[in-house]
């Protein structure tokens, strides 16, 4: 309420000033100008902050209930709560890490690979905008918005170890993974001075608007490592392990889609034309990918399925994520369509060829789709959409291949490789540690009984009358 008063006060001032503007014209005009300049600035902050707070809420909604439902519907009934718990618990746990040191390690200035401790305990993160990250929103808004990304990323991994990981091990794994993989990667790509940060002084300028490398490649690749390390579920692949409730998954996918507008368009850190452009690209990518996957299925199996449609939409959202603030609408459609077909191929042909049990296809969708999107960003990024990259003289620079800058594809590839290496090495080390300390996999009895009963002592449904 205080801001309201402040603002009201400003207007009173402005109005009253204008009453005796005649006598001391110059001073009066100067004061009115300063007042209105401040007022315009405050108004700018309100507009952008309105969108960014909405976006932060949307991104949280992606994890819970979005991802919780999407994954929860895909597992067997006896694991539905255990699977939703992976997403839910991370909403709480990662928040605490972030408050203590996570935001600092990711976004405080440090070296090119990891941030420093200047924002330890959120020290200095208040209402005043941080001009580097968002000149027109309170720094706290940026902090909480970025937290929502840090929450969903490890939650995505849980699709790979679904139905067989110990709950305590999942918590410990996530704390270590966030610290060792996510915070450094976020710093490299988005942190000031990060190695791959194209806009704030990185050595290898990579374009990753909303997290193709930081979020999707790291989580998808780590997921594959987890799937291989934990081994197959008891009975896989002989036993039928059908999704127990595709209605839940469809609802989850729709909420992911809606929430993704906050994820991508929010990454403009303002309610500007760039946000609108990212919003359009996001929607177009998701749509084309849903069609791509469905048509591929239709051609291969004779029927397009709901599971195919929603898997495709998610694949498209993943692939358009790094590109969303850099590409025009029709390239967005193309990126989505390719992602739909490519990820379909990955989770069908490739997965069954290698035979790993990536239970809910975290790698096939996020790892593969994220990599494709990161590379295609290097192809289709254009300064007609995003004029943020300028040389010393202020001249807008070309972005991707279509702008006549083929080298960007290489930069993107470097970022992809770094993400892969960090994810593989980091995840392996962390799994070894967690396994040694408390063990990562549940017993066969627990697995047969299901996570809900064995880990949480409860059941998802008691549908008896």
């Amino acid at each position: 309420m205080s801001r309201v008063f402040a603002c009201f006060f400003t207007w009173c001032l402005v109005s009253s000033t204008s009453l005796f503007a005649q006598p001391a014209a110059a001073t009066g005009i100067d004061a009115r100008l300063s007042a209105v300049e401040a007022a315009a600035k405050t108004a700018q902050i309100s507009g952008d902050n309105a969108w960014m707070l909405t976006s932060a809420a949307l991104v949280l909604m992606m994890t819970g209930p979005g991802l919780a439902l999407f994954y929860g519907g895909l597992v067997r009934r006896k694991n539905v709560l255990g699977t939703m718990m992976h997403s839910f618990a991370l909403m709480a746990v990662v928040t605490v890490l972030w408050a203590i040191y996570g935001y600092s390690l990711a976004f405080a200035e440090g070296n090119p690979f990891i941030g420093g401790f200047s924002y330890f305990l959120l020290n200095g993160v208040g209402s005043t905008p941080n001009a580097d990250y968002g000149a027109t929103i309170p720094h706290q808004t940026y902090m909480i918005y970025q937290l929502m990304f840090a929450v969903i990323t490890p939650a995505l991994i849980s699709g790979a170890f679904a139905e067989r990981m110990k709950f305590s091990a999942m918590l410990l794994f996530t704390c270590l993974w966030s610290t060792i993989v996510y915070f450094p990667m976020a710093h490299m790509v988005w942190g000031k001075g990060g190695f791959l940060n194209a806009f704030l002084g990185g050595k290898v300028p990579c374009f990753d608007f909303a997290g193709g490398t930081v979020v999707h490649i790291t989580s998808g690749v780590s997921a594959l490592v987890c799937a291989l390390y934990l081994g197959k579920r008891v009975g896989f692949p002989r036993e039928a392990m059908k999704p127990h409730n595709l209605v839940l998954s469809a609802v989850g996918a729709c909420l992911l889609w809606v929430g993704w507008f906050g994820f991508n368009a929010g990454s403009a850190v303002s309610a500007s034309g760039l946000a609108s452009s990212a919003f359009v690209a996001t929607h177009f990518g998701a749509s084309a990918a849903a069609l791509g996957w469905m048509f591929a299925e239709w051609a291969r199996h004779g029927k397009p399925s709901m599971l195919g449609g929603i898997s495709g939409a998610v694949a498209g959202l993943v692939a358009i994520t790094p590109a969303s603030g850099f590409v025009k609408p029709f390239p967005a459609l193309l990126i989505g369509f390719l992602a739909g077909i490519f990820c379909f191929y990955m989770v069908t042909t490739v997965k069954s060829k290698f035979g790993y049990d990536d239970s809910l296809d975290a790698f096939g969708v996020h790892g593969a789709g994220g990599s494709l999107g990161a590379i295609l960003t290097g192809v289709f990024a254009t300064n007609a959409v995003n004029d943020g990259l300028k040389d010393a003289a202020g001249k807008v620079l070309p972005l991707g291949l279509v702008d006549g800058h083929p080298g960007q594809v290489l930069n993107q590839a470097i970022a992809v490789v770094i993400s892969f290496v960090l994810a593989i090495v980091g995840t392996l080390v962390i799994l070894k540690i967690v396994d040694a300390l408390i063990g990562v996999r549940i017993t066969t009895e627990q697995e047969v009984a299901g996570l809900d009963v064995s880990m949480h002592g409860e059941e998802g449904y008691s549908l008896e009358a």
Partner: protein
Amino acid sequence: MKKIEAIIQPHKLDDVKEALKAIGIDGLTISEVRGHGRQKGHKEVYRGMEYQIDLLPKIKVETVVTDARLDEVTRALSAAARTGKIGDGKIFIYDVLEAVRIRNDDTGEAAL
């Protein structure tokens, strides 16, 4: 007394209920089951994993009748459940030693 147990197609339940009602059979119990027989199931593919769905949804109808009415009821039930296609189901007949009406401990045919 005999128990008539029929495994039928779910969409024939209304017909069966009406046919039984028509001949004065009121007491019956149904449950949802899944069955496998000559009827071929279908293939479902979830993210590249193929499942042969050979247990198809059926309804089990159980009704205990007096020995006297056994044939009549069986015929009526069979006729109502028939479509003539594979998967129509089966009827099995069992002997019932005793019946009790919980409400008032009536037993035997009086309990039906």
